[in-house]
């Protein structure tokens, strides 16, 4: 194409706009970039849009956050509130809280912007989480996307950090209580804990430095890192191309979907405004973080119903679940004259540590177990990877138990049960919940696979009962069309990979462990219906008598 255009006479723009764009294009080559990106194909599926939601929430966060910085003063100097909210009039408070109240009550549009910012923050982390769940359950983290999965995990941690530093800024009672818990967790770290705490707070808690420091982290460092990670993330998405769900005509060598320009770009642009609109509606109609209710921070009071924002909830829940003493076994030890508070240290750091370690390592774990070094661009349906799906649901269940524990007091009051019983139940579920979830999920996945196989082989039940001349009843099954059948049979079902000797002919202990894990992963499997089986099933479908006999068997069960 370019060869043919150079052969022609040089392009002479006819209009003013044309000459301007031509000027720019000759210098930066915009049309080439546009041609490349405009033809980039994205598959269409609703579950592919959560990353977009996260991105748009982040853009909204940047915009509303910039507005808030115009009016927020991150100072812990003391002042007396003189604004228009009477229940706090003349109350002694920090300048930071004072300015947050002024944003809420005396800056035009300030409360709306604060609520947009906070709702967007909650939605940002929520959509990030759902996006990661989608990626996990569809196996989109497999080669070549392992590194992008890690970048996504880092983004999740950064989002939590951004959220927490922001939560603490208004210096109200709730945020101060949250900081106190963080301070307690930091101080529970052996040897260095107290030093870190004093360094962070510039002395004894709460000091007069923390709000300013968190402010710098919140508006400068953390968003910059998030932006950097987003750039890397999207760059890799472009390099890897987008994954797609299995379907006729889709394979690891192509991407079936719509090009970015013009439809997809228009849709994505419109979607930004939809997300913005939803957030604006929420901010306009629903209160979030009513700081005026909580009052200024003072280390002495703690309000009932003190919780962190939802994404830190699981850590708070783990802290709530931890017993101080179990059958005379104390979790607080004195070691060389220093207190070691395991009842804070363990719940605060261990579950989060396990969740993020497994999350980051999972692509490599599965890669090692399957010895699968191929590139995967076609996604798995979750049921077609039963063990992975079960692991994911088990982990998610574990997270949810801790998450629920953060609201244990509200569960108790709203369902009229004893707070202690809620805690005992959640402690039990903390241990057995993931196991039950694993077993149940794996069985459901295998059952769904069997159902798929059954449908592929014998068609869909029509609900039409036919009585045969000799008095027998059968249900008529309608065969599937080829497109639907492809979805049910076109997947891989890896079999356990036995231990294999290395180049010296030795089966190493590590290899045996891998083989054991492979057996655990793939022992229970439902193979997709093969063409031969399909052929056999279809040909016997024509012989009514045989089919009827089959039906009778399955009906009599």
């Amino acid at each position, binding site marked *: 194409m370019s060869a043919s255009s150079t052969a022609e006479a040089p392009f002479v723009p006819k209009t003013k706009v044309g000459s301007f764009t031509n000027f720019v294009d000759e210098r930066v080559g915009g049309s080439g970039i546009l041609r490349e990106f405009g033809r980039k194909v994205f598959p*269409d599926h*609703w579950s592919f*849009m*959560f990353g977009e*939601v996260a991105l748009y929430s982040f853009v909204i966060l940047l915009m509303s956050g910039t507005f808030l910085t115009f009016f927020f003063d991150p100072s812990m100097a003391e002042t007396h509130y003189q604004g228009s909210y*009477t*229940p706090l*009039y003349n*109350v002694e408070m920090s300048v930071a809280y004072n300015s947050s109240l002024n944003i*809420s*009550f005396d800056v035009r549009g300030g*409360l709306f912007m604060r*609520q947009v910012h906070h*709702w967007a923050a*909650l*939605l940002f982390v*929520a*959509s990030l989480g*759902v996006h990661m769940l989608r990626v996990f359950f569809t196996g989109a983290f497999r080669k070549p996307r392992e590194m992008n999965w890690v970048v996504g995990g880092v983004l999740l941690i950064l989002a939590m950090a951004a959220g927490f530093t922001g939560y603490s800024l208004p210096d109200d*009672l*709730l945020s101060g209580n949250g900081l106190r818990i963080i301070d307690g967790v930091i101080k529970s770290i052996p040897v260095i804990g107290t030093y870190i705490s004093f360094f962070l707070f510039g002395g004894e808690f709460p000091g007069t430095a923390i709000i300013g420091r968190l402010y710098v982290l919140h508006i400068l460092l953390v968003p910059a890192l998030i932006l950097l990670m987003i750039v890397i993330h999207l760059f890799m998405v472009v390099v890897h191309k987008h994954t797609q769900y299995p379907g006729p005509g889709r394979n690891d060598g192509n991407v079936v979907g*719509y090009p970015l320009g013009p439809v997809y770009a228009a*849709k994505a642009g*419109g*979607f930004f405004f*939809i997300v913005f609109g*939803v957030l604006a509606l*929420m*901010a306009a*109609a*629903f*209160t*979030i*973080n*009513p700081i*005026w*209710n*909580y*009052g200024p921070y*003072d280390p002495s*009071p*703690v*309000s*009932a*119903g003190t919780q*962190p*924002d*939802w994404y830190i*909830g699981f850590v708070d829940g783990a802290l709530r679940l931890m017993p101080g003493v179990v059958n005379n076994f104390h979790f607080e030890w004195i070691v060389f004259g220093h207190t070691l508070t395991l009842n804070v240290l363990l719940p605060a750091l261990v579950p989060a540590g396990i969740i993020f370690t497994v999350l980051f390592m999972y692509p490599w774990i599965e890669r090692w177990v399957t010895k699968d070094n191929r590139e995967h661009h076609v996604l798995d349906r979750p049921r077609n990877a039963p063990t992975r799906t079960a692991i994911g649901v088990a982990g998610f269940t574990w997270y949810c138990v801790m998450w629920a524990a*953060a609201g244990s*007091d*509200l569960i*108790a*009051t709203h369902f*009229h*049960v*004893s*707070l*202690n*019983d809620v805690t005992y139940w959640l402690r039990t579920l903390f241990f057995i919940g993931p196991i039950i979830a694993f077993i149940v999920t794996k069985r459901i996945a295998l059952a769904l696979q069997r159902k798929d196989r059954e449908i592929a082989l014998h068609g869909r039940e029509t609900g039409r009962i036919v009585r045969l001349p000799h008095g027998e009843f059968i249900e008529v099954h309608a065969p599937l069309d080829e497109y639907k059948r492809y979805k049910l049979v076109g997947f891989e079902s890896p079999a356990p990979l036995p231990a294999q000797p290395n180049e010296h002919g030795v089966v190493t202990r590590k290899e045996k462990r891998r083989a054991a894990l492979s057996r655990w992963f793939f022992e229970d499997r439902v193979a997709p219906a093969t063409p031969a089986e399909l052929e056999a099933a279809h040909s016997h479908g024509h012989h009514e008598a045989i089919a009827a006999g089959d039906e009778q068997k399955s009906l009599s069960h």
Partner: protein
Amino acid sequence: MKALSQKRRHPLAAIALLLMGLLLTGGLYAVATSVNQAKADTTSYSASDVEQGGKLFAANCATCHGMGASGSQDGPSLVGVGAAAVDFQVGTGRMPMQMNGPQAQQKPAQFNEEQTKQLSAYVASLGAGPAIPEEHLLDGKGDAAKGGELFRVNCAMCHNAAAAGGALTRGKFAPALAGVSSQHIYEAMATGPQNMPVFNDSNVTPEDKRDIITFLKTIEANGSPGGADLGSLGPVSEGLFVWVAGLGVIIAFTIWLTSRTS
């Protein structure tokens, strides 16, 4: 003086001193506690109130609280609890108790105002205790900001900073305070019903109580400046809302956006 100094080594001097000390501390204690004790002004109750109250008590309360309110295995003695306690417990429907449980549940009041007054009169006649507060303490015209500070320091750990209520141990709870009358709020502070501690008049003065009531009535009347308050329950209801409503609506839109193609 000389006689006293001569007798200071008397064998009984130590005992005498001890007695004096005990009398002094006991007397001081009596004075101190009676300062805290709002006197029951039985003057406002007529003799017939007391008599009628006694009959109501015998018919409805004595099963648990015993004849003469002297208490039984099933209920405490009510001698000295004062008119305020009766007015709160009976006026809010907590007494007579619907059923045994971690704490008495609120329900529509079983007795009318007249009967409640008679019961109060009867119990107040049994011994001095906190009286029903005077009108001017309930007018809600105190200092809301000071009341807010007192509320956060003394009440918010159970009742929640926005007075939305909270959980206590083993099925007990601190109720939400919206819709509770000023008189009942005052009486609750003065008498400490259920699991609530008593905030006596030297701890939280009547004027302070007035400020707290003013604060509660102010935030109740103000409503929520930022839109629907989602129960004023803090981040849990906010998180639930963003997951269910926020993300739910977004997912509906994503399905709509991608439904036109296959």
